[in-house]
Every structure is written in C-alpha cells, then in structure tokens.
C-alpha cells in the first residue's frame, strides 16, 4: 500500500526500510504556506485510489530496474493536510549514497508526472482552487 489517510509516520518508515546498507536518503514533501504568491492554509489531496496504487507500484518496479542496488519505500497521504504536514515520503536505501540520492530524486519526479493525485489549495479569504502544475496556474 502506497496511500494513507493517516499522518505519515517517518519513524515507522525508517524502521521499515532498516538502513543497515550504508546510505538512506529520505525525501519528505510538506504542505507549503504559499503558492504563486498566494497564502495557503491547507491542501486537500485527492487520489484515484486504485490507479494511484498501481502507478506507484509501477514506479517502484521501474526504480528497482534502474537502481538495482536500491530499495525504495514510497508513501503518499490523501485528505486534508495543514501547512507543514508531510504529504509524501520516500525512503531510498542503498550501499552507497549516490544511488540513494538518485533513486529518491527519480521517485518524486516520477510521482509528480504519472500518479493520479490532485490537490486543492485553501486560502485565507475562504476561496480554494485545484492546482494545475502544467500551466503554472490553477484550473
């Protein structure tokens, strides 16, 4: 399972990957307090759940082909998150740091491209809108 509606437990994630191999690279995406100059109070993440799970499994498979020495664990949260909360966490474990960094970077880049997850930003003035990264504006 890659999706969760509960707060991401980083300590549990680190225990799960048990980094005795040499290098552990951890990426955590957190809800930012602004976007394109507008303040954000919270973000609601919505997923096409079954497809998001299978796309993240596909990404994990691709990473194990591209970085055979690396083990990767990905978890993405959905639902309403406040500023500063973790929306996604990726742990990449490898004998050497170069592969761990590269796999972690590749994982988040691929997640942002193919996984059907959307986010709605809530602003202090009571408005909200869906983020559209492809046009640098909101749809």
């Amino acid at each position: 399972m890659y999706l969760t509606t509960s707060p991401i437990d980083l300590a549990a994630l680190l225990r799960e990957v048990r980094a005795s191999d040499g290098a552990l690279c951890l990426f955590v995406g957190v809800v930012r307090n602004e976007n394109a100059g507008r303040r954000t109070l919270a973000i609601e993440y919505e997923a096409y759940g079954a497809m998001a799970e299978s796309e993240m499994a596909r990404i994990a498979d691709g990473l194990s082909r591209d970085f055979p020495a690396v083990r990767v664990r990905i978890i993405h949260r959905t639902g309403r998150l406040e500023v500063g909360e973790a929306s996604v966490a990726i742990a990449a474990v490898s004998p050497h740091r170069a592969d761990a960094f590269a796999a972690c970077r590749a994982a988040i880049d691929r997640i942002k491209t193919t996984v059907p997850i959307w986010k709605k930003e809530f602003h202090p003035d009571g408005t909200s809108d869906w983020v559209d990264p492809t046009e640098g504006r909101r749809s």
Partner: protein
Amino acid sequence: MRVKVLYFASFRDAAGRDEEVRDLPEGSDVAALWRELAAEVPLFARLPRPAPAAVNREHSPATTVLQPGDEVAFLPPVAGG
C-alpha cells in the same frame, strides 16, 4: 455497450458528478467518449485537446477502443507530491 466513467478533482466539479454509467455504440474509442462529454461539460469543450485518459486504471491513448464494462477516467493535470 456500457462503460463506467469516473470524474476527479476539477473535472468532478465541472461535470457535477463523480461517476456514471454511459451507453456507447460498440467500437467507440476514448476520443468518441470525450467528444460526448465535451458536448455536456463546458470546461471539457474549452480544453484545446482531450484530457489524458485512463482505461481500467492504465494510462491509455485516445485511440483506445473501449470494451463493455470498461472503467474510464479522464485525468485533470496531476499534482501529487
């Protein structure tokens, strides 16, 4: 034939529904379904090209021919991470 259509995020807001079953002529492809929906949903009609589609939870080109019982979703620009 009947297919299930799912709507997410901004597309759900625009369509005013999160899922429906639609009856399509046999042999319809994803593009044909998009044209039907664009005739009903103004936001879809305004898009310069059909939105990316998933058929049975797999990214699929607009030329994909649909089968009875397929689950089709048109995907707004994804914004995970």
